[in-house]
């Protein structure tokens, strides 16, 4: 059952994120209510303290004021009043919570898998994305989420939604975006070394634009298409946008001179970039030989799981007898209960028995 929420049209308050979902205005309204309560009580207490502290300051060193008896009436008043106010907040908060965590039945489902350290999204049409989620504006979207490894949490501040993503179980979120644009999406449950890199964007598009995107994105600019390739081919996992990854940072690179590890310098022009994409080793940027050295070391054949290549944390000393690769060679679970239909066996569970989520998959 969906609790219908009254329509709220609240202007955006300072220091709040954009209101980009139907629920956002409601959360902000509750926020405003709570701020007013906070202001009222803190100003009350602070003003009283200041007033008393000045009015009744000590005038002579040996002054002893007469004792004041307690007052049952006052105690009752300031027990009952906050209790009543607290109950209003409780009811308001709880009704919002139910609205947030009860996906409408007519919502479009999108499957989400968290993984150290990226978000994988899969549309019912079969399209997959990483760290970016395209949705049409004004549509109810339900996210069915799980994780391959540790607990993550998906949060979109502009939508005021968040839920933990728990291994071995499905969790759900839903939203209805009200405006187009790009909105930050974060992992907010600490999940290891690159936790802060596990973020991305929700791209809210006009329905027509979204349809075009779904059907291959022909209408997009070459730069936008390139970005998609950059993301989907995994380049982004080493060439990071905000921190120094395993590959050189690409922001501000174009047209600038680059120091190479053989001491030479090249201008990062079209020719150099094309050459580096096709043959990364031809001219290597100074300081980025380690991955290549690592690949060299793999020349001798080695056994073991390469299915999941997420490397263990840097300085991977194992303290407790758990070899990092044995932990990781058994990634949990499918993307979604419906994956089989859409993608064949690509995302089959690795160990169906142990991985069956506690809940029954949605019908």
């Amino acid at each position, binding site marked *: 059952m969906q609790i219908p929420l009254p329509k709220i049209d609240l202007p955006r308050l300072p*220091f*709040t994120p954009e209101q980009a979902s139907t629920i956002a205005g409601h*959360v902000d309204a509750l*926020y405003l209510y*709570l701020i007013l309560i*906070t202001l009222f009580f*803190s100003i009350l*207490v602070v003003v009283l303290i200041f007033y008393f502290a000045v009015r*009744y300051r*000590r*005038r002579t060193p*040996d*002054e*002893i*004021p007469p*004792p*004041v008896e*307690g007052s049952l009436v*006052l*105690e009752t008043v*300031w*027990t009952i009043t*906050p*209790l009543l106010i*607290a109950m209003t*907040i409780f009811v*308001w*908060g*709880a009704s919002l*919570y139910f609205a*947030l965590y009860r996906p409408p039945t007519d919502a479009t489902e999108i499957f989400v898998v968290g993984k*150290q350290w990226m978000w994988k999204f899969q549309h019912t049409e079969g399209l997959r994305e990483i760290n970016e989620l395209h949705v049409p504006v004004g549509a109810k979207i339900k996210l069915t989420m799980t994780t391959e490894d540790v*607990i993550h*949490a998906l*949060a979109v*501040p502009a939508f*005021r*939604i*968040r*839920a*933990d993503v728990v*291994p071995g179980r499905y969790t759900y979120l839903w939203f209805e975006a009200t405006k187009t644009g790009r909105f*930050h999406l974060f992992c*907010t*449950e600490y*999940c*290891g*070394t690159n*936790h*802060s890199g596990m973020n991305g964007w929700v791209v809210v598009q006009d329905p027509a634009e979204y349809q075009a995107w779904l059907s291959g994105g022909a209408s997009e600019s070459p730069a936008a298409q390139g970005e998609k390739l950059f993301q989907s081919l995994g380049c982004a996992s080493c060439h990071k946008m905000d921190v120094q990854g395993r590959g050189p940072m690409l922001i501000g690179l174009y047209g600038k001179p680059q120091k190479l590890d053989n001491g030479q310098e090249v201008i990062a022009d079209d020719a150099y970039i094309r050459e580096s994409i096709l043959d990364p080793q031809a001219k290597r940027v100074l300081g980025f030989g380690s991955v290549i050295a690592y690949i060299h070391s793999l020349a001798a054949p080695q056994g073991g799981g390469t299915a999941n290549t997420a490397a263990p*944390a*840097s300085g991977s*000393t*194992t*303290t*407790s*007898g*758990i070899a990092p690769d044995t932990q990781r060679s*058994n990634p949990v679970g499918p993307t979604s209960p419906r994956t089989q239909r859409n993608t064949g066996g690509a995302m089959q569970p690795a160990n169906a028995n*142990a991985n069956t989520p506690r809940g029954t998959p949605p019908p």
Partner: protein
Amino acid sequence: MSAADTPIDPLNPVMPDPSALPADSPEWRVKFPHVNYINAHYGIKSWLLTKDHKRIALLYLASVTVFFALGGAYAIAIRLELLTPPGDFVQAHTYNKLFTQHGIIMIFFFLIPSIPAVLGNFLVPLMIGAKDLAFPRINLLSWYIYIAGALFTIWALLNGGIDTGWTFYVPYSTSFSNTYVVVAGLGIFITGFSSILTGLNFIVTIHTMRAPGMTWFRLPLFIWSTYATSLIMVLGTPVIAITILLVALERLAHIGIFDPRLGGDPVLFQHMFWFYSHPAVYIMVLPSMGVVSEIVATFSRKNIFGYSFVAFSSLAIAIFGFLVWGHHMFTSSQSVYASMIFSFVSFAVAIPSAVKVFNWTATLYKGSISYDTPMLYALGFIGLFTMGGLTGLFLAALGMDVHLTDTYFIVAHFHYIMVGGALMGYMGGLHYWWPKITGRLYPEGWGRFSALVIFVGFNLTFFPLFLAGYMGMPRRYHAYAEEFQVLNVMSTAGASILGFGLLIPGIYFLWSMRYGKFAAPNPWPATGLEWRTLSPPPTENFASTPIVTWEAYEFRPIEEMEVIGPAPEQSSRPVPGLTTT
């Protein structure tokens, strides 16, 4: 030339003529201090093997100060990293270790033992008129257990640290982290027993060792809050101990109790963890509330308004505090109905805290208020705790919490409680009882100055984080989005002011131990039993068991509050090394 000016040759000491000195003048006190717990015995062994609760309190004081400095250093490093959006100061892995270790050290090795083990140890027997805690040997043992746990943790830190966050959430901590989880966990496990033994000792002492006439409703409110704290320590700490044990077993032997791949449930860990760790918040802040009650009464010379309400609100917080842990798990996939119960009780537990704040404020009414350093801390506490408590309402409100949890709003909220509450109370208490502990006064001017600096620095550090949190900045982020930078720069600036402010008391406390003015038995003056013995108190606290005939916070002119204990002249003896006999 008077005898006092004569330089004393330590190799050939000559007994100065006592009659040449005015009785109880500073010179007299240097030459003829009364026998007190500090000078009763000498040598490192007399400290390490002491069973005197006051000396054990000082052992704790020294150790928690070291850990506070260490945790503070981590905090500074964290704030430096967050000055700029990209992660450029330290590596991501290092940053994760920084905030984990900051949390573990500050919570388990500073905040939890700070007031109970330092001030509580020192004051509980003094305030109830007992000679010592009920189990002095167990008291010493608990300090050694604390040190043992601390050594384990430090070993883990030196060997490469731990990066799970202080919450140790599984399955990251059990199967994915490559850091020293088991060793650090063992450290916390061991330290937990120190906390249990301290709480046990307090409960038994308060029940069985009160002086004649010291009825429950004549107890200082600090005792009530320490009692409530002890209940939490005793009932909650064993659960975190077994939880950590299970994490270690899971990590070492894959027992599958939390691991979904082996049929376990990671959310069970969160239940067991927060069963302790939420009440642990009250372990940190309840004693501060007790300290504030003492200070507010003394420096407004008024009986606490609604004494019994304040007393019972401590118990209510301790008991209801055990019913609200699920409010840390509103977004954790917990059942929505369970969330409703936990949210409801969370709002209920806010009420006793509100009652306390109102009663403290009402105590000021028609008082005689002075602005000594402890009072500045106490008033600061009331303001900051009000803010911290009210922002707690945001987080207890289910729909609101979904947006705010795991953001900087949480970080700001709990620092308002932990630093604005617990630390302010601890600092206030330390200043308030410093004359009793050391027999010396701290420099009042510096005290007030640093209290103001700390207050300003604290607010500048943590207030912007509320805003960053609502804007959506996630916590535990090594690199963050550009839009949050201004607020983070403010916070880092505030942190440097806060750090500077905290250094000042560190310096003048050390200074005052040697150069501070001597303290009278009751310098403020206050009403508690601890002020009716000498400063510093003798080893057995009182010359004879006091008989209490007055109510709590019954202010009378200082002449009427006689000192129970030998007068300084009678108990004087020469300083060892200066004697000729």
